[in-house]
Structures are given as C-alpha cells and as structure tokens.
C-alpha cells in the first residue's frame, strides 16, 4: 500500500524542478563542511519524494545543506574579483567554507584555459591552483608566494602584457556611468545583492557595495 502511494506521487516525475535527486545529494553533500558519512546512510533510507519535498526535519536539513553548497559556489563565481599578470597567472581571493574550491577553479579554468589559476581561500588559509591541463593542487602557502613561484618559469605573454594596468578605476567609472536615476529601484537592488555577498573577499570595499555613496546596510 505504502509503495503504491509513493509510486503514484507526482513528485516522482523526472525533470521536476524542486529538490535534489539521490545522485546529486551523494555527489554534492560531501562538499559541506559539516558532512559526515552517517548522513549519506540516513539519506539512503528516506524515499526521494520526501527528500525532494523537505518532508521531514531531516530532509529539510539535507536540502539546506545542499543549498548552502551550491549557493556558495555560485556566489564565488559571480563575485570573485581576479587579476592577471603578464605571465598568464590569474589570481584572486575567495572565502569558501565548504569544499567547492575545485568547482570555482574549474569555472575559471574554462575561461582561461592557457592560464594558471591561483585562488587563495581565506577560510582554510590555503591556495588552490589549477594548471593548463586541469590538474588541481592545494598549497599551504599565501597567495603572493604561490603566484611568484608559479610565474617564475613562465614566459611573458604579449597580450597579457598589454593589459597590465589598473582596472579598478575603469570599472568604477563604467559602473557609475550605467546608473539611470529615473529607474531607481532600491528594493530590487537590495534583493539582488544579499548582505552575505559583501562578506566575500572580492566584494570588500567594492563599488557595488555602495548606493549613491551610502553603504547598502543603511538601507537594510
């Protein structure tokens, strides 16, 4: 009887938007900082329908953990500000609580396949490095020394040498130029950039933090 009701439930359809499948959970949950193998055992005992629908407090907890992992990776991709030196080494600082550094590194590797990418994780105080072949390494050293070490044996690449100037001011100018005061929409702005994002290293003292020379928290 129990099985038949589960089979009939609409939540079982393939392609449902809500929740995560078993496979996704098994794949991504170990990335959470508070993961324990015991959780996976428990997950396997719960029907997928309940998991997807946050049917029990445990399922709710699993969904929350999954959400934390995916949003952290997504935000790191969006808001990490990077620099590139003339030897094709792209570097930046991230603050990743969960184990998603590899997915962030891979994202940048796809964009800059001929570059070495170094991301310093402020949380673990380690630097993640991905080379041209896509091999990932985690080094227990500060970003500066890793970048120097990696750059040493690489030749100067002319088109990276071309863009060795400060871009911060350029971005600030471009950013300010795009604002249409007539379309001012404070609530939309607040919704688009949650406070959590400002804790990310790339966003500290960034221009996006301000709205007409006021800090966003003044509006919240």
């Amino acid at each position, binding site marked *: 009887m129990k099985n038949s009701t589960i089979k009939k439930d*609409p939540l079982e*359809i393939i392609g449902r*938007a809500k929740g995560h499948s078993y496979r996704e959970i098994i794949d991504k949950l170990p990335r959470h900082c508070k993961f324990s193998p015991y959780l996976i055992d428990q997950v396997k005992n719960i029907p997928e329908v309940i998991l997807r629908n946050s049917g029990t407090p445990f399922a709710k907890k699993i969904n929350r953990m999954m959400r934390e992992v995916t949003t952290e990776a997504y935000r790191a991709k969006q808001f990490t500000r*990077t620099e590139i030196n003339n030897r094709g080494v792209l570097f930046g600082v991230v603050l990743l609580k969960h184990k998603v550094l590899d997915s962030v590194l891979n994202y940048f590797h796809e964009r*800059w*396949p001929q570059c070495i990418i170094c991301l310093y994780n402020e949380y673990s105080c380690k630097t993640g490095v991905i080379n041209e072949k896509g091999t990932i390494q985690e080094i227990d050293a500060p970003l500066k020394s890793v970048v120097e070490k990696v750059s040493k044996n690489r030749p100067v690449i002319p088109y990276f040498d071309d*863009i060795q100037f400060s*871009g911060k001011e350029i971005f600030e100018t*471009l950013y300010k130029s795009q604002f249409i005061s007539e379309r001012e929409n404070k*609530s939309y702005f607040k919704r688009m950039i949650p406070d959590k994002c400002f804790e990310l290293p790339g966003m500290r003292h960034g221009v996006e933090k301000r709205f007409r020379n006021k800090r966003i928290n003044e509006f919240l």
Partner: protein
Amino acid sequence: MPSVLEKIRVLGENSKYDICASTASSRTDKYPKLFGDSKNWIGTTASAGICHSYTPDGRCMSLFKTLYTNKCIYNCKYCFSHNCKKKLSFTPEEYARTFMKLYSMNVVEGVFISSGVCGSADDTTEEMLEAIKLLRFKYNFQGYVHFKCLPGVSQYLLKEAISLSDRISINTEASTKDYLAEIAEQKDFKNDIIMRQRWLKEIRIKHNDETLKVIKDLKQDAQLKYQEKMIKDRRNNGYKKFRWDGAPILNSGQTTQFVVGAAENESDYDLLKRIDWGYKEVDLRRAYFSSFIPIEGTPLACKQAAPLAREHRLYQSDWLLRIYHYKLKDLKEILIEDDNLPIGDPKIHLARLYFKDHGLVDPNQASYSDLLRVPGIGPISAKRIINLRSKKFKFRRRQDLKSVGVVLKRAEPYLLINGKNQTTLQNFIYQDNNSAPQEEMI
C-alpha cells in the same frame, strides 16, 4: 587627448539607455566547430546568466556596454548624445584592451558594442568591427559579443559582423514609418532599418546552409585536416567564409529595441504588431523596450516620461507572443481605449475573457493549450501535467498541482480541482441562487 577613463564615463553614460540581456548566447557544444577547440581561446559563453555586478537601480551589468563614438550625424529627438557636448571616440586598440582588462577582473561577461554614426554608417561600422577583430584574433576572446548595427550599413559589413558576433541588433525605435519620422526624422524606416533586418535574416540562412553543407560533405578525417588548415588561415580571410570560430550559425540571432512612449499616440498594439511581424518575417529572436525618459537639452525634454509599468506590460505581452504562442488577435481583444494594454498582467486579462466562454479547467481533462491559458501555469508545468496524465495519475489535491510547479495563487480561480472551484466572495453572494452563471463567478 581625453583619457580612457573620460571616454568610458562619457560613452558609457551615452549608452546606458540601450538594453541588452546578460550573455544570452545559446552557443554550446551541440554544433561542430570547423576550426576545432583551440586551447588559446579565452572566455566562455557556457555560464549564461551569471551576473557579476549590479547597478544601483538593481539591473545586472554583465556586459561592457559603451558607445564606440558619440559623434553622430543623426539628430534623434530622444537621444542622450544629442545633448552631450563632449564628443569622443575609442580607438579599436583602446576598446579591446579595456574590455580584456575588465574581463580578466571578472567584472564583465561579454561585449555590447554600439555607436553613434560618425561620418557614414560604413566608416563607423568598419572601426567597430576592427575592435571586435582585435578581441577575437589578437586577444583570442571567444566569449559573448552583441553587435549593434547602425542604420544604413552596407551588406558586406553586415556579413562580416555576423561572422564575428553572437547577437546582432538593429534599433527599430518606433513601430511605423510615421512614428519614426516623428522622433528621428533623418532615419529612413524602410531602407535603413527594415531592409537591414531582412538582409540579416537572408545572410544568416545562407550562411547556415553553406556551413552545414561543408560539414556534411566532409568525412571525419578530412574534417580534422580541414580544421587544421582553417586554424592556420584564420587570420587571413578564412573566417570570412564562416563564423569566426567555425560554428555553423549565428547563435543568438537578431534583436531590436523600441523607445516606448516617445512618439505621440503610438499605442501598445502598434508595437506588438511590429514585434509580431518581426517574429514572422525577419526571424527576430526577441525585442527590448525602453521607456522614454525626457533628457534635458533634447527637443523632447518637456514631454512626459512613459510609465515603467507600460514597458513591463509590453514585455509580458511579448512573452505571451513568443513563448506561449498567443496570437496577436487574442491580445487585441483585451486592449482598452487608444489600443493600449490594460493595467495588470495581460495573461490574467486574457484568461478572464477566455474562461468566461469556455468554463473552468479540469487539469485531468484539459488540453495543453487550455492549460497554458491558465495564469500560474507555464509551458513547463503544463507539460508536466500532460506527462503525469499519460501515466494515469489523477490530480485530486491542490498539492498535486503545486508539486508540478503550478502557482496556485494565480491559477486557482480558473481550476476545477476534484470537481471543486476556489471559494470566492462570489460564492457567498450567489449561495441562495445555485444557478448563478459560472462566468460571473470567474
């Protein structure tokens, strides 16, 4: 000599009313690339929708959006650069370098290049193309490029622009010749705009046919050799034959933009009619609307600004035409005086009208098109309902519908779930009279 910063400040401000979506490229690995996947490419278009920065009005700023030059022979009444006293231009090298710097900082996702018409449309377009060529071939940038075509540009330049960009757009600005003449009298609606839109369609179709034929004719081994040769020849005229990276199509198609409310008496129906024509005749991918905002110093400075809600309603209606495949005559039925859209969601207005005649919808029996007409049910949830029904599932609870993605708050007034309709105030009014007409209850 003005600095790059000054140019960005002025030209960025001049382009802020141009609208573009964030990296809307559908370029994927689905199509074979004649030139192969080189390791030298920089950038991707795979992560569409990633927004790196938001402007204070809440819009995502994911593209490097500035004019190439604000020098312009046209004297459009609504235009920002009309009033701008500082006339500046980028050089191709400056433009490409600045963009690459911003891309390396991970603050922008692609390029949106537009311009005033300095001298002639062809001269300016050639310079703009030079900047894009530098990006593609010097800096090896393979990310998203949105190229804005200038009115009256030659066909050979359009061809080149297609081969270098992901998306091309020509601003229509107004729905008809007369309305355009009212706000931009120097532009020729038929020749400068409509003819160019038709050319874009023709070039694209011809381009696709030719490339697909080449791909089909080549065997696997021959294709690899061909790729190698083409990579070598790429910097010489090789890319002109096909897309710059060898992909067979211009992925993101062509778009257009309208200034809403600038021309006197231009109605929403006029605009919708023009968009509908665009979808049918010139393979328009989508249309953008920009509410008219009066700018000091321009001839239309005293004119009232168009409400942003009007722009929003036009987007909603455009969505109905494009995604839900409503017909223009359906939308015509809900228009109010002056052929404008009524206040509120057009889909709700349409549903009120439609279900008045057709009765409430039973999700266990309704057709796909009927389901699609219910507010709160989109193409995905309608497909899910049909899919579930084919597996002999019956929708008996509200939760069943909620679980397939239906927005019950909007959908309930039009649904008959397990034989029951949502209780509304009307039910109490007609409680003594059970024979109250169903349409009134809606």
